């Protein structure tokens, strides 16, 4: 069984926002709702680093744990989805989420926070009618055998999406090429260690695609 993950390779991410507008293109979320965004650290400073962030579809998702209406569920592929018909817009998931993924419409007509919206890994949501599904949850590319449009359109192939094993294989290969001592999340210092050492390091850093991203950034 595949386990779907995102990984943003910060050595490649140039903050072009291609992923952000690709998401708009696929899901047509309204103005103000950004399921994906690019975060830049040390903006304009020598260590400037950018990384594209959305729902990371956590294995043990905190949003699921805190939701009072239990509107979240995880697909067999490990994608975290939620049911907008059950969502009451309380915002607990937003406080629980370490990535700031849940979004709420800001100016809903009748003064509510509105139904929570977040990245679905382009897997739609719990709604049979395709037109209504698209309207509520956006695209269901997974059903068409496609991956999220943000990753598919990434300008430098920084943002990877897919089965965690495949994603980490791609990333591991890059790390070996680069010869970082510290995965991809440090300054480039090639030649500091042997190829074997690098491969061992790469293995360690690449197996869980999601967790170190924010911690190291």
């Amino acid at each position, binding site marked *: 069984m595949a386990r779907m993950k995102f990984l943003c390779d910060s050595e490649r991410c*140039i903050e072009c926002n291609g992923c952000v507008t690709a998401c708009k*293109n696929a899901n*047509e979320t309204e103005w103000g709702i950004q399921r994906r965004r690019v975060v830049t650290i040390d903006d*304009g400073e020598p260590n400037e680093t950018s990384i594209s962030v959305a729902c990371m579809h956590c294995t043990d998702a905190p949003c699921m744990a805190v939701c009072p209406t239990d509107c979240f569920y995880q697909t067999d592929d490990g994608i975290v989805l939620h049911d907008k018909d059950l969502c009451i817009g309380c915002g607990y998931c937003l406080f629980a989420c370490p990535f700031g993924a849940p979004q709420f419409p800001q*100016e809903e007509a009748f003064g509510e926070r509105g139904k929570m919206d977040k990245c679905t890994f382009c897997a739609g949501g719990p709604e049979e009618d395709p037109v209504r599904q698209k309207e509520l949850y956006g695209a269901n590319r997974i059903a068409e055998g496609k991956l999220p449009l943000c990753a598919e359109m990434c300008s430098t192939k920084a943002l990877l999406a897919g089965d965690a094993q495949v994603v980490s294989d791609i990333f591991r290969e890059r790390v070996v090429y680069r010869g970082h001592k510290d995965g991809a999340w440090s300054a480039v210092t090639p030649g500091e260690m042997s190829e074997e050492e690098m491969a061992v390091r790469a293995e360690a850093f690449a197996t869980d695609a999601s967790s170190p991203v924010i911690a190291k950034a």
Partner: protein
Amino acid sequence: MKLTKKKYASSGKADSKGLGLSRRSFLKNTGITTGGLAAAGFMGNSMIRQAEAKTALSPDVPKEVKRTICSHCSVGCGVYAEVQNGVWTHQEPAFDHPFNRGAHCAKGASLREHGHGERRLKYPMKLVNGKWQKVSWETAIDEIGDKMQQIRQESGPDSVYWLGSAKHSNEQAYLFRKFASLWGTNNVDHQARICHSTTVSGVANTWGYGAMTNSFNDMHNCKSVILIGSNPSEAHPVAMQHILLAKERNKAKIIVVDPRFTRTAAKANEYVRIRPGTDVAYVWGLLWHIFENGWEDKEFIRQRVYGMDEVRTEVAKWVPSEVENVTGVGEAQMRKVAKMLATNRPGSIVWCMGGTQHTTGSNNTRAYCILMLALGNMGVSGGGANIFRGHDNVQGATDLGVLSHTLPGYYGLSAGAWKHWASVWDLDYEWIKGRFDQGKYRGKQPMNNNGIPVSRWVDGVLENKDRIEQKDNLRAMVYWGHAVNSQTRGVEMKKAMEKLEMMVIVDPYPTHAAVMHDRTDGVYLLPACTQFESYGSVTASNRSIQWRDKVIEPLFESKTDHEIMYRFAKKLGFADQLLKNIKVVNNEPVIEDITREFNRGMWTIGYTAQSPERLKEHQKNWHTFDFETLKAEGGAADGDFYGMPWPCWGTPEMKHPGTPLLYDTSKPVAEGGLNFRARFGVERDGVSLLSEDSFPVGAEIQDGHPEFSDKLLKQLGWWNDLTPAEKTSAEGKNWKTDLSGGIQRVAIKHGCAPFGNAKARAIVWTFPDKVPRHREPLYTPRRDLLDKYATWKDSESMYRLPTLYESIQKQDFSKEYPIILTSGRLVEYEGGGEETRSNPWLAELQQEMFAEINPYDANNLNVRDEADIWVEGAEGGRIKVKAMVTRRVDRGVVFIPFHFGGKFQGKDLTDKYPQGSAPYVVGEAANTATTYGYDSVTQMQETKVTLCKVTPA
């Protein structure tokens, strides 16, 4: 950027109702979508927003897949556009496209929004008593045409200015130049003038052609890449895919030289901060170390470079202390970078507007070329001068001559050039001549004299008419796909607009030009189609030509550029001549006929073998071209290079594969090899200009040789290789003017480049500076350097107009305006930004015009982050923007992005747009605050260095 991702823009959503009929509303009415315009009237804005944003559809509607090319920069990314019921419903990544492998930046990834076009100009409009009034196409063309004829009678054809576009397809660009020619003027130009004109002049004068020499894909093979005045992370993001591949796989060293620590610099191995406007000094500083250490490629220079010794003499003056004094870069870093370049070959140089948009632009571009020549980096894979062009078809529009100084194909404006094109057009040369003003101005006839460049149309309106080399001032301007806010001197531009008798704006959007002036009459807006509502060819930066399908039918009442040209030509009385050999169907000239016509004439740069049939074949088979080499392996285009990068010699039947790398002698000419062009004669001062012992593989002339002509063929005994028909055509002609292509065919058959085989020249004796020299900007804060590095004397006439240098530089503005002002791009927007700021997916990401300022200056000036400030340029133009306090810029430098418009000196102009067509985001145009200054060869505008002062607002 910090100032982004806010809630709704002030100009944003309030007027999103009343949008007129669109393809989408057609869908809604047929019940395919759930929302609808019917609901719009009685709901709040937030509800409308939701309904407007959805394009839900039934999956049962059959999909048609179109292949098109992104229209937002010159990388040329392929796109799959899925269309249902005539509506563009999906955009899928083209993983099999050889340039981008499906990748897009923010602009490319939002391309489908063009199919919505809610803020488009919906129908022709004219300004009557300060109000926009809807008119029919017929009325608009009639009224405009009558006024033009009146101006023509009173002032001659040169008083109407035809400002064309880098957003035309190749066919439209060609037709536009032909149109202006038959109207009888050289007052025709486009954005390339203010984009890479100094590249074309500097580079073509060094080795023959003024274009990017290698390709994005070939950059995988670089061992080093030096980017100077180029920020591909924002301006050409998909190029970064290729550059980062070189960095990862090839351990290429990436060096970024820029006054600003850009997003590209964040990915570099070495970042070098220079003072704006000191490029020549910087490059000479590198060469000083290279020569000092003997790191130059001596054999390459012996074989293929002329005049390097004169450069050595100039470079010898640039000792490390002087380089540091002028550029601000210390000896250690200069040496480090020089060594990086020397030890990591082949290496490539990349430059963009940061290098070109200077009064000294033509010096900068030549200095960059000379650096590559000294290192022996030219004509090799992984090397080259990789000049990234801007708009999607700025390369093509340049090649096809939407320029005031040349006809298509860089033939120039001499009588010979006109006769060549007259024969291609199948028109009587004397008739064309008769269309021009027959007067002489300073001894020059308008037909053979450079027209006013786009950078200077303001002066063409405002300058005393006795000082212009034409009969009268400009009286009417046609802005056809042009963003006026990308041009400097906004305050004077406003004056010029108000003095004009008529402004005609042909564009998918109203543009800043529709609102920045206080006119109440005499402005027409004509809605043009985007390239997704038309089809035809487009030339990417790497010289590859790609074919676009039509994705959707024209939105609203908009029309394609070529149809509008046809309608104007009919009104103005020269449609029969314009379209003599081009069919017209439903008022639209047939695109393929136009392609075939320029194929028949574009011999100089090899635009002759890319027939519509071959282009479409490449389009259909783009998956067969290799990602590394761009060469097709098998399939219908086997052996061709993708898009047949020009020069693609001879006729289509000759099946030349295109030239992927310019001047690469490791391949036969017939397979895309080449050498430097013999463009500047065969000898100078008794020294040969031809190459020595260097020639493409398989050449029968194993040394330098002049360009091919009928005489040379006879001399070599190759004349009889021509067919009888070719002989008739070739008699008295050369490789540029023989319409049969026979001369080119025979030269290539013998392994030789039709344009000769010469050395590149490091000195250009026809330029104001024979050896590129550092000269301080007109508005410089370094008054102490003026003794040594002053600018040129004022010129009485360049491109028909007096041009100031010394008289500006002599005045000291640096006391009142102590800060350097420079400008550049943001990834979300393109050019003047009217199109991209009207795209909600992009506009949402950059809602505020801002100025980057160093914390040191901000604190001294009492400016806080995100506070409103006034930035006032040295000529008094003021813009009110948000401060972004950041170390991205150095002390004493302020950076502003140039994509904003719709505000002018603190005043919001949103309500001056025709209803429903204001962009989602408006902001002060950077160029309201920029100042005078034009390149001494091409009249490129100076946007990268001027002076300003900053005050809290």
